[in-house]
């Protein structure tokens, strides 16, 4: 490994840890949000479903960077609260990826044939139980590939957080570069690291999907 990287390795690794932490927290948060929104839209809950559709369409039409600016500058100004770049990033990513995951969840739910839910109801399960025990688990298994696609996107997105000043991996690398000026080496190192992490994550998704396939 080149010297510039070795010498700054602890600093870079702290950045990488921040990246992984943001990705993990927002993946979990975004999945929970997407699940709740997707189920609500699928069930056509009155009023709620309509406003959630607006949320989904709004986010899916908005660039990620603009979403971050909205969470960092616009929401605090509008609602009168203070936020840090980290908090805004986490909120922005969760809101952003949650909308995409909600669409995946909804189409996953729609792909489960109604006969299965009917069978569950026919054995005396309540609607809620039929959703929780049969329909949602089946839908989630089916959308594992698209979920992991979203997680990979999320991992790549984290680099954008550096734009609003979050000290994650890309930001740390650019800081080091500003000091040592070795742009080719630094960028190659950063690109390679993301590449390996993303490929690993996709692989986990594929293994999980094969394992859960029914």
């Amino acid at each position, binding site marked *: 490994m080149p010297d510039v990287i070795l010498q700054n390795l602890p600093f870079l690794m702290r950045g990488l840890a921040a990246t992984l932490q943001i990705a993990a927290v927002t993946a979990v948060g975004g999945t929970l949000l997407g699940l709740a929104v997707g189920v609500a839209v699928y069930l056509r809950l009155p009023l709620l479903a309509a406003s959630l559709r607006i949320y989904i369409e709004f986010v899916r039409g908005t660039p990620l960077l603009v979403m971050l*600016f909205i969470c960092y*500058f*616009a929401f605090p100004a509008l609602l009168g609260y203070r936020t840090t770049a980290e908090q805004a990033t986490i909120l922005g990513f969760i809101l952003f990826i949650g909308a995409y995951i909600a669409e995946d969840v909804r189409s996953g739910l729609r792909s489960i044939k109604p006969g299965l839910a009917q069978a569950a109801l026919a054995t005396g399960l309540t609607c809620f139980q039929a959703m929780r025990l049969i329909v949602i688990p089946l839908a989630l298994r089916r959308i594992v590939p698209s979920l992991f696609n979203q997680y990979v996107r999320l991992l790549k997105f984290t680099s954008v957080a550096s734009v609003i000043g979050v000290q994650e991996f890309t930001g740390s690398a650019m800081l080091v570069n500003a000091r040592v000026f070795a742009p080719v080496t630094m960028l190659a190192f950063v690109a390679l690291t993301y590449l390996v992490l993303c490929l690993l994550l996709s692989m986990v998704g594929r293994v999980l999907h094969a394992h859960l396939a029914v």
Partner: protein
Amino acid sequence: MSYRFDWGPIWEARALILDGLVTTVLLSTSALVLASIIGLVVGTAASSRRLGLRIGAGAIVELTRNVPLLIHMYIWYIGLAFLRLPPFWCGVLGLAIYSGAYVAEIVRGGIASVPVGQGKAALATGLTPVQALFFVVYPQALRIVAPSLANVFSQLIKDSSLASVIAVMELTYEASAIEGQSFRTFEIYITICALYLLLVTMVTLALRFLPGEQENISGLGLAGA
């Protein structure tokens, strides 16, 4: 809510916003054309019968799309700074190569969905392989992949906002500048969200009116009416 809406400063900055919008359109269009060319070449190579080409194309796709777009832009802007490319072209190249990988995947899938016999039949009538691709295989594949293509292209338009980071004065860049001067935070971001939505909708609609859609209409029984 204590926030008071004031759209005045946004209206006053309309010339800047329009400038940004034009740059975003130019940036996206250039990247879109380039990404389509890259995607077509790499995607076709990925569908080749030659193992070497397939592996090479697959490697390029994985290598490209698993690196964040921001890094792609930094590579041209900072990494290859000695080329002295203007920021606009750094943005175009980063965006085109990154999105090209996604287009390539779609092209590969589209070609795979066209029955092999179609290409063979075209060759049998004396067309060259390139003619067979352009006259027989691509047109059929395009109809199938149009929706996914629309997705990638609208993603590309939204992704173009990242070019603001490397000082391309497109929509998001101008929005930040206006926000910094006027502090009309919410108004300006809502405005550019609406503009992005407009662009994305236009691309989606454009791809919906591709050749081949008439068949669906006749399928609904309207053709005979």
